């Protein structure tokens, strides 16, 4: 279930990623990455001996200051999960990882749409779920209808 922090750290160090932080949290092992080295990090994880070839999920969280994007990876051969987390400023862009994990194709579009981010390097970067002109819904500043509004409908 939980991979070894030191093993992942050393694997990433040997792949030339010296600045990444690997930490053990209650959720699991989280690798924090800069936006710029995300692609390199993910392909290093995929090609490492741990074989994180399977992307379980990809989602964003609005922390109130910036948007954190989490890539949930799994190694089917070792049955281990690891989370890669990167942060993006509001209205900023993030790179598409579809060439490393094709599973990211649609979730990436969803994250870009729901948090108002720009997606670079994606073959089909259209909106996925909602129509044009809607506010990025999962941002905390976008309110849904309150109880009073619902009642006064």
């Amino acid at each position: 279930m939980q991979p070894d922090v030191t093993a992942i750290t050393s694997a990433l160090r040997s792949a030339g990623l010296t600045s990444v932080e690997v930490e053990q949290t209650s959720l699991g092992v989280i690798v924090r990455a800069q936006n710029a080295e995300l692609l390199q990090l993910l392909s290093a994880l995929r090609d490492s001996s741990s074989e994180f070839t399977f992307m379980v999920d990809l989602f964003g969280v609005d922390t109130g200051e910036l948007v954190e994007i989490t890539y949930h990876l799994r190694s089917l051969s070792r049955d281990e999960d690891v989370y890669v987390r990167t942060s993006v400023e509001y209205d900023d862009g993030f790179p598409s990882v579809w060439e490393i994990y094709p599973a990211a194709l649609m979730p990436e579009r969803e994250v870009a749409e729901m948090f108002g981010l720009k997606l670079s390097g994606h073959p089909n970067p259209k909106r996925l779920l909602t129509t044009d002109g809607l506010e990025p819904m999962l941002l905390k500043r976008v309110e849904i209808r309150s109880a009073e509004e619902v009642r006064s409908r």
Partner: protein
Amino acid sequence: MKLWGSGLVNGLRISMRNMRRGPITLQYPFEKLELPERARWTVVPLSDAQGVPVCTACGTCVKTCPDHVLALDVTTNEDRSKHINHFSYQLGACMMCGLCVEACPFSAIAMSHDYELARVDPDTLEYDLITDTPAYKPKREKPATPDAPAQPASASEGDAS
């Protein structure tokens, strides 16, 4: 290796067997299914033996309802007894989850078995469960849960956001 086509013949045999089992459908408006005891449909107020609604206007159900379909309009008298002006219910938005009934500390509401809910007039989708009735005084005054009634103010703020 089976003969090509034996599966087709077997399929015909199975569908004929099913045909001979007879129809399982009910002719709905003429025949009706009996609902199991737990079936959840509209919310109805419950009354005591004299026909007085047993709602104490505590507002737990209103705070619990995920879709805000219940609303209480209550005036508090000088002797701190409450008077329910309207206990309104939006049938059209209710999803019959039953959380209000579970939350009710005095069993004043229940999920009925009334499932024929089609309406011609959309205005009838919102109606009052209880109108202009003094709130029921429970025999034993006790907080229903250790948590919810203790901080009613903060909980309602959380709902309104």
